């Protein structure tokens, strides 16, 4: 019974965390984008435009939930959940304090890599069921991209797993040493780039490129279902940043005991903000450049990282 209760509590906490990170993320994104483009961003609603996001959220919830006539209505309506649920599930295995994770699984790292990747399915069927060419092309592009970037991402995490000798995230955090950052530098870069690509965010946003595909696979969604896609994107950013800060940078161990959470959240914030910075700085890639980057640059780099770690580990 306590397991079930704990599950419900963690589910609620996780859902609230994703919703909050979406609001903070969208506000931060608009403000940072505005700074980069020498604008002001939201500033009319509330001080510094802080109330813009609660207002937008309310508007989104109240908006009409439109299903296009040519859509396959039932699949169209459940597709957003297929995107959101796997990404939310990925959060449970991330350690949020040294030695503690909501689901302390012996295969947590594999779980984190495997389960969120199921959102590919949701993106494919969202694009297909819209019955709209732009959406279908967006869905196919998204799926091709996410499958391609899964490989370098998994390989880059594997280097850390070899160093720690465990697939349990809590063990990795405990085993973490500061010299892992220089030793693992290539792996960190590969993880960072392929995480952005996994989330379909700029400069890898060709599945939802607004100038050619309107919004790609979620072009036909309105109201709260559109909001679920947005929450998936920012939830995925949150998960990737938390995981990177905990596993690659070991920020949970920078301060002693429970204070590790301070550096952990700071590190997560830095990684998340830098993703926004990257999005608004680099131009969108062409599809062929995208595939070249995944298969001919990042995958070999991740393999080189694996070799480096493999050579070093026997001398530890």
């Amino acid at each position, binding site marked *: *019974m306590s*397991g*079930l209760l704990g599950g419900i509590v963690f589910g609620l906490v996780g859902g609230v965390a994703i919703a909050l990170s979406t609001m903070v993320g969208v506000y931060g994104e608009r403000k940072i984008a505005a700074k980069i483009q020498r604008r002001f961003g939201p500033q009319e609603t509330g001080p510094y435009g802080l109330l813009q996001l609660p207002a937008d959220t309310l508007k989104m919830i109240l908006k009409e939930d439109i299903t296009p006539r040519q859509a*396959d209505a039932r*699949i169209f309506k459940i597709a957003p959940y297929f995107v959101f649920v796997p990404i939310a599930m990925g959060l449970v295995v991330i350690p949020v304090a040294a030695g503690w994770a909501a689901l302390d*699984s*012996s*295969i947590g790292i*594999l*779980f984190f*890599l*495997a*389960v969120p*990747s*199921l959102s*590919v*399915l949701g993106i*494919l*069927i969202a694009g*297909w*069921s819209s*019955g709209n060419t732009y959406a*279908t092309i967006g*869905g*196919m592009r998204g*799926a*091709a991209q996410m*499958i391609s970037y*899964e490989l370098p991402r998994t390989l880059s995490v594997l280097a850390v797993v070899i160093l720690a000798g465990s*697939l349990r995230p809590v063990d990795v955090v405990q085993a973490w040493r500061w010299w892992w950052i220089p030793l693992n530098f290539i792996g960190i870069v590969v993880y960072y780039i392929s995480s952005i690509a996994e989330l379909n965010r700029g400069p890898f946003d060709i599945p939802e490129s607004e100038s050619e595909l309107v919004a790609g696979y979620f072009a036909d969604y309105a109201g709260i279902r559109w909001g679920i896609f947005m929450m998936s994107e920012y939830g995925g950013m949150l998960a990737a940043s938390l995981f990177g800060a905990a596993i690659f940078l070991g920020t949970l161990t920078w301060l002693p005991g429970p204070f590790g959470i301070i550096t952990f959240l700071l590190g997560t914030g830095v990684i998340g903000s830098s993703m926004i910075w990257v999005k608004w700085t680099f131009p969108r890639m062409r599809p062929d450049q995208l595939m070249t980057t995944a298969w001919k640059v990042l995958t070999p780099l991740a393999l080189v990282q694996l070799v480096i770690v493999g050579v070093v580990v026997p001398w530890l």
Partner: protein
Amino acid sequence: MNDTIVQIMWWVLAAGALAGAVTVVFSRDVLRMALGLGGFLVALAGFYMYYALPFLATVQVFVYVGGVLVLILFGIMLVHRSEGDARPGLSSRHDPGSAAVAVGILALVTSMLWPLRDVMTERPASAGTKAIADLLLGDLLPHFEAAGALLLIALVAVIVIAGGDDR
């Protein structure tokens, strides 16, 4: 109380797997059939979890749902046009043959599994990743390497065959 919930979970999983399988057989829309297959595969992963095999469950999700099913969906989308080509009516002249094959496979699987029915009602202890790794990189290393090399050869062969025209 916990046992009841676990039992209910088992029935939910069984119902999910059955619903997925029925969708695959009876749906007239190819995409729904693929989604039914996905539901079945996820339910199977749930069964692995139920039998305390989390590694197998995660790999099942990773390989079958995240890999094979996405490949099937890709195939459907690239080959298929969206309107007006739902599968024709369920009855076809192949029906008796298909039914015979289905009954035969059911009989075969049942006859093989029937002697194991006592063993299967017990939950096996989880083998854990350490045990699997010891096995794969210890006694079974030659088999593991051979399977890997074979898959690599097959992969290269597929690329050569599929891209053979432009040379």
